[in-house]
């Protein structure tokens, strides 16, 4: 059993037809149920849910559920790009191996300096990222970086290429406790067109990676579809189904979702998103996720503008990135490469914290106690 079996069930389900027939009254009925089914989730994603009073009702419920389950707090994390060397040719991405951007990879000395700089910023949760190149950044390299960084932070999440269960376990032992991987698109037919070559080309390998991280004992597993590649409603529904599948099978793992909207990038000039995802769509998706899965963590990156991110605090989001750079290094050193995508929110950690406090929320820099510090 894999999530693929669930996906196949929905692959030929007439989602568009269902969504079109949903009325505002249907959405309200679904909202009132104490335990919501997958079809209730789909109902909440229908165009009819965007009628102002229905969306407001979804938002009010979402805010209440978020405060009860997570409190008036937002956990902050910061990304650290270890490398941008990539063997993939994803048509929408700045790291595409055919793009002539500056490529580099941090040395252990540089990783140490980045760790010190992040420590000084105050945030104790980081996500380490690479391009997808097993030869340039093998699992052992990631483990070495982790062993250095865990001296400076309390929680380390990886966002790298697909690994084997054994390799996930090895990194977990080294000190990694979180996993992030975006499926990009759940559309099995579109996927190979957008990822024509490289290790990421294989749909199934990518789809099953989050489950391998659950098996390896990771504390948090973060999913997401890159919104804009295909119909965002379908992508959101299938991401929610993926989350539900993992939550049921691995109740000890904290499941999270991100809602990345496609951003302009260097060299991505020829790609035009298939679907225009508006602010109201993101709000609908967040509040639908929250009403469907009240304990699901929801992450928002600096792809979004400060103003929009400020508005999302309180709507259902529980984790925000701050002090973000998408270039290799960048916390301790001036960036020496091009970024993966353009970031919209340039606020540093202190500015981000102030904005969160202004919304009546508390920015949390540490929400994890690593128990494998000496492992």
């Amino acid at each position, binding site marked *: 059993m894999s999530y693929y079996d669930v996906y196949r069930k929905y692959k030929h389900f007439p989602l568009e037809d269902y969504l079109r027939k949903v009325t505002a009254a249907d959405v309200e009925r679904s909202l009132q149920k104490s335990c919501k089914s997958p079809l209730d989730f789909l109902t909440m994603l229908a165009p009819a849910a965007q009628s102002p009073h229905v969306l407001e009702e979804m938002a009010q419920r979402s805010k209440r559920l978020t*405060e*009860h*389950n*997570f*409190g*008036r*707090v937002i956990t902050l994390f910061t990304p650290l790009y270890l490398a941008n060397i990539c063997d993939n040719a994803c048509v929408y991405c700045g790291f595409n191996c055919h793009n002539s951007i500056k490529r580099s990879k941090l040395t252990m000395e540089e990783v140490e300096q980045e760790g010190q700089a992040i420590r000084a910023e*105050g945030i*104790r949760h980081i996500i380490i990222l690479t391009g997808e190149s097993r030869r340039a950044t093998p699992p052992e390299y990631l483990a070495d970086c982790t062993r250095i960084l865990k001296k400076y932070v*309390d929680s380390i999440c990886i966002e790298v290429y697909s690994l084997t269960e054994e390799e996930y376990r090895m990194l977990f032992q080294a000190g990694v406790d979180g996993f992030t991987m975006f499926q990009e698109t759940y559309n099995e037919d579109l996927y190979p067109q957008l990822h024509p070559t490289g290790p990421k080309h294989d749909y199934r390998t990518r789809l099953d990676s989050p489950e391998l991280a659950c098996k390896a004992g990771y*504390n948090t597993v973060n999913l997401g579809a890159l919104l804009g590649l295909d119909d965002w409603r379908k992508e959101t529904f299938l991401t929610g189904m993926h989350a539900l599948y993992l*939550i049921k099978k691995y*109740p*000890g*793992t*904290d*499941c999270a979702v991100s809602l990345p909207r496609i951003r302009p990038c260097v060299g991505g000039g020829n790609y035009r998103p298939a679907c225009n995802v508006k602010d109201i769509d993101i709000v609908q998706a967040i509040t639908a996720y929250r009403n469907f899965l009240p*304990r699901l963590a929801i992450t928002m990156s600096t792809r979004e503008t400060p103003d929009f991110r400020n508005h999302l605090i309180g709507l259902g989001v529980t984790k925000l990135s701050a002090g973000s750079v998408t270039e290799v290094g960048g916390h301790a050193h001036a960036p020496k490469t091009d970024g993966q995508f353009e970031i919209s929110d340039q606020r540093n950690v202190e500015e981000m914290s102030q904005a969160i*406090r202004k919304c*009546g*929320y*508390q920015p*949390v*820099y*540490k*929400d*994890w*106690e690593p*128990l494998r510090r000496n492992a």
Partner: protein
Amino acid sequence: MEDQLIIGGKEIKSRLFLGTGKFGDDHLIPKCIEASGAQIITVAMRRIDFHTSQENMMQYIPKDCILMPNTSGARNAEEAVRIARLGRAAGCGDWVKIEVVSDNKYLLPDNEETLKAVDTLVKEGFTVLPYMTPDLYAARRMRDAGAAAVMPFGAPIGTNKGLRTREVVQIMAEELDLPVVVDAGIGKPSEAAECMEIGAAAVLVNTAVATAGDPVRMAAAFGKAVQAGREAFLASPGAVRQYAEASSPLTGFLHEA
């Protein structure tokens, strides 16, 4: 007879325990403690950064409170034990609330793993208060392992649904000869009073206060409700009857001399 609550050899002044997570602003914590009169304050170790000089939740907890670090984030006994030891090593004292959860959907505590942690930590000299799924047998085992009190939930944490586990909690309160503290799920002061009326020794709240429109005022309301509920328990309420009882009974003449 004086109505005393003794836990871990200490007399506890307030029967309201307060959690410190979920506050939009940690400055509210000392105000809520003061308004409610709470004395036992629980803090998640995972949230404390002992390596920083930056502001830290610990500095908002008045010195005359009893600090009860909790093991939130622990998924098994071993992790709970390690978190408890970290707390003690960091100067948080000997009290610990054991929280072992490996179901992140409802956050229901795992009694089996919790019992193992109780056993280990009592032997290491901790004053141990286990957060548990209400169950008489498990509670007895925790008592026998040396728990200073047991803390069954009223409803799943954060739900504000009130005392949904009333029957079992009441039986535990009657049978255990150990303080029973209702922890989690209590959303309103009236529900906290209900816990006290059926014989709970204390109530622990967090979400209901931290996410209230006015947390300080809500904390004060909970403080009063817990006192009122305790008074009612001690006063032995009149029996509940099916029919109204007339003040001039119809059969009164039979008993007249």
